[in-house]
């Protein structure tokens, strides 16, 4: 009797541990998948820039990942998850503590992941927001000022708005919903991209008296590799945001994410063909990304049909949005503002239009509020940082350097030889 109770307890503990191991394993695999999104961004962006600026964009991408992880370790993580509920800004201290005992293991998050898993998964997300910016200001931004911007953006701006919702801050208390970050990651990156693109100005020769002069990317295979890798990583980005390996939720998220991506491709395909009479690969690629960004806010709570519609509309938005920014003379070589900002907003609003987030969260008003305040804060922050850099060290390379390319100008190197 005693015996069977002991064994039963032992079994229960073992079973709970097994659950914990499996959950934690999924979070770690998701971390790995999110990590490779940085290669996805690097490939996408380098494919979409001119041959003469490839070394520069690659350099920025590896630096941004490294800076992102390190600053998130120093400051970001504890600024985003300070352990204070309902606030606007709070800080939990520098660095990480040593992980010890059950408090940082099975108890830390009800057997879903360990303390260090939590950090590394969140850390991989963080760098993403800067990578988005790097695409929009590519081919003319100065290297060092851009890296300085990134340090501030990723260690201060991103964690603060992240705290508002995911860190249980005031916006979360209001009922704002953003499952995996249509707003908190993608729009945030997109607002930074917009501020940067405006302040750094369009590339030489892009907008002329005669109209828009296309500056074509140098390698469509690279760009395509990038998009596939981003989709690949998104299984971890959205799937990991379940924060456990719960079979129901994660499999639902896999389905909604894939369906939205596929629909985004079709949406962009159709609209490009109708509006521009062209089967445009770049548009279709961005359509996939648009679909992914769009469903990111609601991947855990919409039906498959909803996901299809969200993705289709996001994809359809892409060609129109890209043209719109071009008409505004906001030059964005990779389409980051359309993909991440516009589709990020669409996805956040879609939470209120689709799915059943009825328990108070998800009403249109609060979603719009979230979009608005996060946008206002982030855009202002990014604009200010870029502006201060602009009037001090300058953020744009000189004309001659832009013409010969940043690879020679900033790195004394060429991408291909």
């Amino acid at each position: 009797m005693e015996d069977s109770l002991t064994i039963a307890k032992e079994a229960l503990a073992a079973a709970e541990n097994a659950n914990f191991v499996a959950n934690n394993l999924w979070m770690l695999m998701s971390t790995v998948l999110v990590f490779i999104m940085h290669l996805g961004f690097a490939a996408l962006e380098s494919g979409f820039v001119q041959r003469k600026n490839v070394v520069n964009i690659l350099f920025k991408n590896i630096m941004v990942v490294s800076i992102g992880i390190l600053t998130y370790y120093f400051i970001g993580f504890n600024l985003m998850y300070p352990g204070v509920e309902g606030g606007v800004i709070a800080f939990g201290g520098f660095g990480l503590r040593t992980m010890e005992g059950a408090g940082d293991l099975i108890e830390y998050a009800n057997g879903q992941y360990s303390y260090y898993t939590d950090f590394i998964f969140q850390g991989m997300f963080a760098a993403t927001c800067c990578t988005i910016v790097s695409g929009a200001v590519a081919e003319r931004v100065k290297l060092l000022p851009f890296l300085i911007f990134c340090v501030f953006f990723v260690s201060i701006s991103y964690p603060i708005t992240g705290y508002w919702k995911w860190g249980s801050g005031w916006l979360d208390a209001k009922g704002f919903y953003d499952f995996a970050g249509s707003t908190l990651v993608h729009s945030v990156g997109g607002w930074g991209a917009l501020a940067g693109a405006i302040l750094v100005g369009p590339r030489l020769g892009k907008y002329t008296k005669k109209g828009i002069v296309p500056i074509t990317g140098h390698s469509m295979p690279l760009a395509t590799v990038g998009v596939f890798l981003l989709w690949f990583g998104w299984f971890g980005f959205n799937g990991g945001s379940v924060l456990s390996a719960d079979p129901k939720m994660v499999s639902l998220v896999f389905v909604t994410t894939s369906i939205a991506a596929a629909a985004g491709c079709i949406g962009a395909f159709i609209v490009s063909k109708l509006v521009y009479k062209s089967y445009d690969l770049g548009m279709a690629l961005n359509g996939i990304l648009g679909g992914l960004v769009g469903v990111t806010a609601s991947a855990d709570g919409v039906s498959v049909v909803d996901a299809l519609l969200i993705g289709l509309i996001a994809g359809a938005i892409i060609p129109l949005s890209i043209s719109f920014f071009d008409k505004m003379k906001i030059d964005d070589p990779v389409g980051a503002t359309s993909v991440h900002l516009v589709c990020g907003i669409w996805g956040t609003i879609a939470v209120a239009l689709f799915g059943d987030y009825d328990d108070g969260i998800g009403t249109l008003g609060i979603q719009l509020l979230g979009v608005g305040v996060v946008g206002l804060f982030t855009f202002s922050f990014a604009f200010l940082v870029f502006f201060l850099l602009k009037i001090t060290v300058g953020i744009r390379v000189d004309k001659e350097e832009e013409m010969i390319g940043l690879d020679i100008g900033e790195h004394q190197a060429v991408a291909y030889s």
Partner: protein
Amino acid sequence: MKKIEAIVRASKFEDVKEALAEKEINFFTFYEVKGYGHQIGKSRSYRGTIYDVGYIARIKLEILVGMDFLDVAIKAIESAAHTGEKGDGLIYVSDLEKTINIRTGSIGSDAVNS
């Protein structure tokens, strides 16, 4: 010695090469060039903007020949490169003062066609 230069359609290059070979002109140099002319390239589309590249990729041949082969070579190129559509290209001939074969050191018409 004369130098024949010819700008032809990339798609006609193989035909020209064979036409020359039939006349036993097997030696020449060529390279890729871009040309503005009557013919305009297909327009392109990038992110919703339609544009013209303007130029067309062409092949330029450079053939050194003695007087004996001059007309034969020109004729061969002319008929092989001809389609009748805009964009067929040009042949032009200039005089060379001196020609030296680096391997043999022979000069003038001995330098080529050997």
